[in-house]
């Protein structure tokens, strides 16, 4: 029976050895993959997407073109993961209880009430220009969720619950999910694949303008709505309880 200090030391030694071994494997794997890729024709892998995407989808931002057109089904699965995580958080934490009325100081509140409308410019720009500039539905949606959290933190949970009721968040998340799935079916009815874009008859527009890229701006908007509603409702669930009903004997 060794002493606890030696046991802790041995545990940490084993853990450190394991971490070093695993990260060594990580490095070897990555470097091998990189060398393998360098041996193939260098720019062969990235050329197709960057060369094709403007002509095929009308989206300047190639990453958005991949996310919303070529691999839109992955985006649907990712939205499903957000949906599942909201559902699990709600199931674990239960219904949000009585919202607390704790707010920031007066100066912060006055300042925020003047500045808050300006803060909404950035997420909306990122969402609507997702196919033209860096950004897209995810980034804009998460910034919207952060703004909702800011409203809750700055003006108190009760005010936040009045301005943006939890029911509205849930409804917009369901609506965006149904919209995503429904737009996918348009592609099938037009005789193409699920979630198809230009192939399903959506107008491509001239690349570089706001109304281009077929269904991509609409998908960006829906994904942004869904991510914003999902993540901010996770916050509402997490913050909706006071830590007061802890069992007394365990404190």
């Amino acid at each position, binding site marked *: 029976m060794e002493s606890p200090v030696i046991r802790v030391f041995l545990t940490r030694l084993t853990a450190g050895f394991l971490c070093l071994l695993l990260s060594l494997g990580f490095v070897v794997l990555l470097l091998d993959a990189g060398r393998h890729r360098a041996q193939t024709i260098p720019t062969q892998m990235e050329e197709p997407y960057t060369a094709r995407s403007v002509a095929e989808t009308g989206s300047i*931002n190639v*990453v*958005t073109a991949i996310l919303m057109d070529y691999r839109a089904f992955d985006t649907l699965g990712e939205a499903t993961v957000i949906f599942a995580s909201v559902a699990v958080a709600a199931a674990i934490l239960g219904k949000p209880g009585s919202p*607390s*009325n*704790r*707010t920031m100081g007066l100066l912060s509140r006055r300042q925020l009430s003047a500045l808050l409308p300006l803060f909404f410019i950035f997420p909306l720009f*990122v969402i609507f220009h997702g196919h033209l500039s*860096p*950004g*897209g539905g*995810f*980034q804009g949606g*998460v*910034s919207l*969720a*952060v703004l909702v*959290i800011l409203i809750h*933190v700055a003006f108190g949970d009760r005010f936040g619950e009045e301005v943006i009721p939890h029911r509205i968040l849930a409804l917009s998340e369901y609506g965006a999910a149904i919209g995503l799935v429904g737009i996918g079916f348009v592609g099938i009815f037009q005789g193409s694949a699920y979630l198809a874009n230009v192939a399903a008859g959506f107008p491509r527009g001239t690349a570089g303008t706001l109304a281009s890229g077929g269904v991509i701006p609409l998908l960006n908007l829906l994904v942004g709505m869904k991510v914003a509603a999902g*993540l901010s409702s*996770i*916050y509402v669930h*997490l*913050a909706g*309880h006071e*830590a*007061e009903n802890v069992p007394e004997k365990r*404190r």
Partner: protein
Amino acid sequence: MALDIAFYLILAAILVSAFAAIHVRGHLNAVIILSVFSVLTTVKFTFLQAVDVAMAEAVIGAGLMTALFVTAISKTRKRTWRAR
């Protein structure tokens, strides 16, 4: 060349801040260092020309994760002060 040196410095700072975020004492300190780690990661992604990923990392790592962590910490701590 100067940009290369800045890149390597940022890589070193990423490793140091990742280590510090786990081993620093106190939950709130750890969360703030984690958001510093996210901002440094954002700068690194910008160096590697991954602008979309950099924006997502900035918004999620420095914005949303910090808010969620601080909320969870305030819920898992004995109440020492009351609502005004």
